[in-house]
C-alpha cells in the first residue's frame, strides 16, 4: 500500500524540510520513496506544495492521484484546504492553525477552522508550540510531530531524521527541534487511559 502525503504551506515556511525529514525516515526504514517539490517562481511567498509517496513496493507515478492521499499536512490552514481533493475518504488532514494572511481576500479564520473541523481535520497551534520550544521557526517540525501519530513510520526513525536534518546547526537547534517534534506529537497522541 502506498501512503501518500501532500504537504502544503507558504514559501519560506519550510515545506521542503518537512518532506525531506519524513522521506529520510522512510528511507531509513527501507521503504520506497518518491517526492516532488516546487522550486523557482512558485516559491516567492506564494503557495508551496510538496508530495511524498511512501511504500514497501516500487512506486509508479511521481504525483498523488486525487482522493487517495493518506494525509494532508498543512503548515497553513488555507493551504491545507487547497489540496483537499487529494485526500482519501479515510485520510486525515492535519494543519497548523495559524494563518499566513499575505493575501487581501483571506476568509475569516473562524470559518477556515470550522471547515477543517467539519471534515474531521486536526488543528495544531504549531507556531505557539514552536515558540514554547525555543523558536517559531520550528513550527514545521511541530507539524512533523503531529503527523507522526498517523504516519506508517517509527517515532525513532523520525526523531533520528529530525536530528540529522539539524545536526549541522548545532546541538541547541537539534534540541529545539526534537522538543518541537515531541510537542506536536503529544497534541495528536490519544490520551493514555
Amino acid at each position, binding site marked *: 500500500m502506498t501512503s501518500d502525503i501532500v504537504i502544503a504551506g*507558504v*514559501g519560506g515556511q519550510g515545506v521542503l524540510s518537512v518532506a525531506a525529514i519524513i*522521506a*529520510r525516515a522512510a*528511507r531509513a526504514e527501507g521503504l*520506497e*520513496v*518518491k*517526492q*516532488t*517539490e*516546487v*522550486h*523557482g*517562481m*512558485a*516559491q*516567492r*511567498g*506564494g*503557495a508551496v506544495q510538496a508530495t511524498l509517496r511512501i511504500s514497501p513496493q516500487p*512506486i*509508479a*507515478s*511521481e*504525483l*498523488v*492521484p*486525487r*482522493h*487517495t492521499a493518506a494525509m494532508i499536512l498543512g503548515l497553513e490552514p*488555507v*493551504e491545507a*484546504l*487547497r489540496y*483537499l*481533493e487529494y*485526500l*482519501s*475518504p479515510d485520510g486525515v488532514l492535519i494543519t497548523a492553525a495559524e494563518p499566513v494572511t*499575505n*493575501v*487581501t*481576500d*483571506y*476568509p475569516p479564520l473562524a*470559518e*477556515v477552522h470550522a*471547515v477543517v473541523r467539519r*471534515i474531521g481535520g486536526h488543528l495544531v497551534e504549531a507556531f505557539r508550540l514552536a515558540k514554547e520550544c525555543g523558536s517559531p521557526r520550528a513550527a514545521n517540525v511541530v507539524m512533523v510531530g503531529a503527523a507522526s501519530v498517523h504516519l506508517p513510520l517509527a517515532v525513532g526513525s523520525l526523531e533520528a531524521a529530525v536530528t540529522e536534518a539539524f545536526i549541522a546547526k548545532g546541538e541547541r537547534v537539534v534540541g529545539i527541534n526534537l522538543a518541537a517534534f515531541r510537542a506536536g506529537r503529544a497534541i495528536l497522541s490519544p490520551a493514555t487511559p
Partner: protein
Amino acid sequence: MLQISPPATSRLLLGDEAVALGAIDAGISAAYSYPGTPATEIMETLMGAAPDGVVAHWTANEKTAYEAALGVSMAGRRALVAMKHVGLNVAADPFMSSALVAIAGGLVVAVADDPGMHSSQNEQDSRFLADFARIVCLEPASSQEAYEMTREAFEVSERFGIPVLLRLVTRIAHSRSPVTTAPPRPTPPLDKADRPQDWILIPGNARRLWHGLVALQPELEAWAASSSHTMLTLSDDDRGLGVITAGIGRNHYLENGADLGYTPSHLHLGAYPVSAKLIRNLADHVEQLLVIEEGYPFVERRLAGVLPTRWDVLGRDSGTLPADGELTPDTVRAALGLPVRTGIDLTGMVLPGRPPQLCKGCPHEESFEALLAALAGIDQSVVMSDIGCYALGALPPYQAIESCVCMGASIGMAKGAADAGLRPSLAVIGDSTFLHSGITPLMDAVAHRTPITVLILDNGTVGMTGQQPTLLPGSSLEPLLAGLGIEPDHLHVIEITRQRVTELTALLRAEMDHPGPSVIVAVRECVEARKDRRQGTAS
C-alpha cells in the same frame, strides 16, 4: 585504468542532481549552464560535486554555454550543457548546426521542459527540437534513469558523432527518488579532432555532413529500437488496446494499470528517434493505440496522419487526454476508461489564490514605485519588461509592466514600440537578463538613436532561480553601457533606497523626454542574495 569507488548505496536525488552525477561519472571535462527552472539544480549540483579540474560554471546565456561545450567536444573531451526548454531556443543556432559537425568528445545537452508552465512562459516540447536537429533524444522517467541515461548519452554521442539531447520534464527534474551510482569512468585525454573539414560548415562541407546525418537516421532508429530504454511487451490478455508510453507517461500509466483487470500490450519509449518498426509490431497486435506522453503529441502525430487508418490513435490530439497542461495519474486514468475516484470536496468556501510575491524589502519595490510615479499623468506610454522576479510587477499592488515574453525582449520591444510611434517607451530588465540578451537590442537602439529609456534593475544576482551570481559585477555595467554608446548625460547609476525614490522618479521623467536611448541602472542587492552571502561568510 580501473577505478575503485565506494560501495554502491542508493540516495534520494532530484532528477537534476542525478543528471549532474551521471555527467561527472561519465568523465566530463566541462559543464556549462544558464540558470532556469526546472534545470537550475543540474549546474548547482555540478558546482558542488565536480572533482578538481572539471570546469563547471554559469555562462552569459545558453548559446554561449552550448558553444563552449562544442569546443570541449572538438578537443576530444566530454561536455554537458544544461538549460531549461526555452533556453534551447536561445542556443538553437549552435544546437542545430552542431548536429552536422563530427562530434568528437561526447556532447550532451540536458534540457528541462516545463509542461504545465510551473515557472515558464510556454510549454514547448524539446523532443521536437531533437527531431528537428535529427539527433538522438533520451527521456528518463526516474532519477535512476536520469543518472544512467546521462552516462549512456555520452557513449551514444561519441558512437554516432552527434550531440545527444536528454529531455527532462519538471516532475522528473524536481522529483526525488532513489539513485544507485556506478563506478566513474576516467576523463578522456585531450585528443583534438583532426579533420577540420568536418567542423567547417561552409556549404561544400555542410552538404556532405548533412547528407551523412540524414543517411545515419535508420541506424539511429535501429539503435533506439534496441535500447534498453525501449520496451515492447505484447499481451494476449486483450487484443483491443495497445498502450504507448513515453518518459514519465509510463509512471502515470502504471499507477492505474492494475485497476484495468487485464494487461494491454505496451510499448515504452525512452529513446528517440521513434522506432517505426516497434510501433508496427505493436499495431499488428491490437486495434486501438493510446499514446501517453508528456508535452506535445509528438509520438501521436507520428502515428495519426490526415489519412484514415485501420487503427484508432488516441492521445492528446484526439482529445482522449487533455491537449495542454501536465499529465496526471487522474487524466491518464480517465483516458484508460477507469472510473473516476470521488472523495471529500470543499463545499461552501472559496479559497483565495496565493500568487508569488516580491520578497519583503525587495529592491524592485522602490523601482516600481518610482516608475509608476514617473508615468503618472501621462496619457500614453509603454513599459516593456522581461524574465525575472520583476515580472511580478505585473501583479497588484504595482501593475507596472506591460510585457514579459523572453529573455531580453523588453529592450527590443521597447525599440519597436518607439519606432511605431509609442512614446515614452520604457524597458525594465534585470542585470543578469540584460547580460544574457539585452546588450544586442540596446545596440540597435544606440545605432538608430531610438528614444527609449531602459531601467536596469541591478540586484547583483539571478534572483528568481535561487540567487546565482550575475556573471559580471554591477560595477562593469556603467563602462559597458558607455562603451555601447549611451551618452554620459543619459547614463545614470543610482543606488536605489526608499529615500531616493523621488530622485529616480525625476531621472525617469527627464530621460523619457530625451530623443535618444537612455539607461538608468538602479542598484541594490537582492535581499535573498544578501542573506545567502551573510550566511556564507558567517559559517
